[in-house]
């Protein structure tokens, strides 16, 4: 009895003395382990997701695709380049690595990664539109890239846009949780599910995302005219990147994507911009589609900048033929 009383008294003394330290540390320790486990599981799931943009980024970042011809750009290039059709017409394995919502600032990390690992890529195609070289400080869905934040190419490209948040995501434990969006969680679940069920959907379109919608807008409506301001800094970044691509014997092809004439009317200096961008490509490898007959018909678009499936097929077939001629394949 006495021993038991003595023991319970010493436990109580111990509790009184160390409780303020032991309990919080234990609480925080368990929480840290819990968060680490969740974060690791989420990251793992995201990396195994094959869904949409995240799936495409995963394929590139995990070096699962190594095509002969790789397309980069924003959603304009993503819905415009029919990669299976390009593969068929050119006899080159083509992959559309364009990512919806991004500009050159954000997708250049992917280009650098491809340049670093690819053994096959001979042609890097940039599907450019008017906003690709306009500087922004707003990341688009950065959580699609966060599974690879420790990759220098990805980190640098994101950091240049939003240094404060991106730095915190990388350096501060668990800060990334405050930045994850539902897309991130969805992809994590999809990735985990496809792994657990061993069902990995095949990307039969090689990154191409066709859009079947029609466009019934009033194209005669007067446009609010504005001037495009390209960032000299970004143009210079592109030139440096081009040199890096060239040094690994990859040709840089720049395509100014088709834009419906009603969309072109919004910009007072489009011709000048196209002229500036034409200097970015390797000699003879710039393609300007702003004068193409595609731009005159709404049947090829689902809005002023984006081609629908029919437009993408027509454009891709035409581009493949032109490219074949110029490359003398």
């Amino acid at each position, binding site marked *: 009895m006495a021993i038991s009383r003595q023991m319970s008294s010493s436990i109580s003394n111990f509790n009184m003395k160390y409780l303020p330290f032991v309990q919080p540390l234990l609480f925080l320790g*368990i929480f840290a382990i819990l968060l680490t486990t969740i974060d690791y599981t989420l990251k793992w799931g995201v990396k195994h997701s094959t869904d949409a943009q995240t799936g495409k980024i995963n394929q590139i970042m995990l070096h699962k695709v190594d095509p002969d011809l790789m397309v980069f750009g924003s959603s304009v290039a993503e819905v415009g380049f029919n990669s299976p059709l390009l593969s068929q017409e050119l006899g080159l394995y083509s992959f559309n690595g364009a990512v919806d919502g991004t500009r050159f600032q954000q997708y250049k990390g992917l280009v650098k990664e491809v340049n670093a690992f690819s053994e096959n890529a001979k042609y890097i195609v940039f599907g450019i539109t008017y906003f690709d070289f306009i500087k922004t400080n707003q990341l688009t869905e950065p959580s699609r890239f966060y599974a690879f934040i420790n990759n220098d190419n990805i980190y640098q490209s994101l950091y240049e846009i939003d240094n404060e948040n991106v730095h915190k995501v990388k350096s501060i434990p668990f800060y990334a949780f405050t930045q994850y969006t539902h897309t991130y969680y969805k992809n994590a679940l999809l990735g985990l599910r496809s792994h657990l069920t061993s069902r990995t959907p095949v990307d039969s379109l090689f990154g191409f995302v066709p859009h079947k919608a029609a466009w019934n807008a009033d194209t005669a409506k007067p446009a609010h005219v504005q001037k495009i301001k390209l960032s000299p800094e970004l143009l210079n970044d592109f030139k440096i990147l081009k040199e890096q691509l060239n040094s690994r014997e990859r040709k840089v092809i720049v395509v100014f994507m088709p834009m419906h004439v009603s969309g072109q009317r919004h910009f007072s200096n489009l011709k000048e911009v196209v002229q500036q961008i034409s200097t970015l490509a390797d000699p003879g490898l710039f393609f300007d589609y702003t004068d193409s007959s595609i731009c005159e018909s709404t049947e090829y678009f689902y809005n002023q900048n984006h081609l629908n499936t029919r437009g993408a097929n027509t454009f891709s077939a035409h581009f493949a033929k032109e490219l074949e001629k110029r490359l003398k394949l």
Partner: protein
Amino acid sequence: MLFNSFEFLVFFPTVVLLYFLFPHRFRWLVLLIASYTFYMFWRADYAIILVISTLIDYLCSNMMDRHSEENRAKRKPWLWLSLLSNLGILFTFKYYNFFNAAAKDLAEVLDVAYAAPAFELLLPMGISFYTFQTMSYSIDVYYGRIKAEKHFGIFALFVTFFPQLVAGPIERAGNLLSQLREKHEFNYQRVTDGLKLMAWGLFKKVVIADRLAVMVNQVYNNPTDYEGVPLIIATVFFAFQIYCDFSGYSDIAIGAAQVMGFRLMENFRRPYFSKSIREFWSRWHISLSTWFRDYLYIPLGGNRVLKWRWYYNIFIVFLVSGIWHGANWTFIVWGALHGFYQVFGLMTAKKRDLLVQILRLDKYQGLYRIIQVATTFSLVCLAWVFFRANNISDALYIIKHLNLENPQVYKLIRGQSLYLGLPQWKFLMVCSGVFFFISLEFLTRSKHSPAIFFNRFPLVIRWTSFYILLLSILIFGYFETNEFIYFQF
């Protein structure tokens, strides 16, 4: 600095650590430096207004204290100096442009020349809160309720104490000043309870209020794009947004102070369960409503006057409360509407009691209570329309179109998307969040706060529930830097 920012996550533990590490005699200095740092994170140059306000009130209160309580005539000039300085600062930064524009409009109508300039001044964060706090201090010293604080540092800390500096609770000197002198030992239970309250406040802010804000802003910034049900939903959502936003701030403030050993006054007591507008005001923004009661309503005569004068006093208090919230007609109408509710409630009290007896509602207490709570909530929501609308014409449009007679109802029944700036699944998620919140508030209605409700459970349940709370904040929280609504006041 925002409570929901990463900076605060670093700032607060550092301050707490320093506070408990320093000897008692230097702790006021630690807190004073911390408070100014906290404020200067927003705008460093505006700290000068705090300094001016502090200096004037310190001087005035000590000058008042030199004369005995009976010799009020000699105290009076100093009281006026203090009140006029505080109100002058408040008027210059908050109301000048509003009254200037109103005077200009009036001059135009009367065809009189008017040429006072407009100033582009940024409203200092929390100005209405700290000026009211210092004003109450000066008034209390004048009436001899408290002694003037001789220690300038302690007084400066009373004005700027960071947990409640920018959005209250508006503390009374009688409560806070004495605590600033007390020695607070580290107390494990108190610290953990404070942290729980802070986590609960953060949950309300980032998980509920900021999520609701997306939909409320979508509708209230483009009201003419909507009619009927979406307007009703947005208004009800705003009621919960502002409650979770402001009470969330208060919880964090009270919790932060509690961690360091200070007891700040309760600011909200489950106001949406009120059975009358009168009860609502005894549960909503308690620190402000009691301030108005003590420093405006009672000096006006309170209820110890003729009936019409009593009604007038009530109406004036609510009108001033509306003006306190902001220099905009929408706030004035909001205040006036609440004043009208109160006066109308008093005028019809006997008739309503009679109606209850005729309908025999008093026999069914549960049902009667539900009807009372629902009616009060509806009236409060109607007033929130003016509070949130960008201008009076938007508010009138919304009120005119708050109906169920339109195709939106059928859309809702058929489960189609009511575009409120969020996809349907997010909308449903937010609704679940609100439902969870109300349920928890209801279940814990007899407790001080849901945050300490779990204290009586075994450790495993307690910890699990807090892990869930923290994970919910991280996973469902909206972390775009959204300021607290009451910062603008």
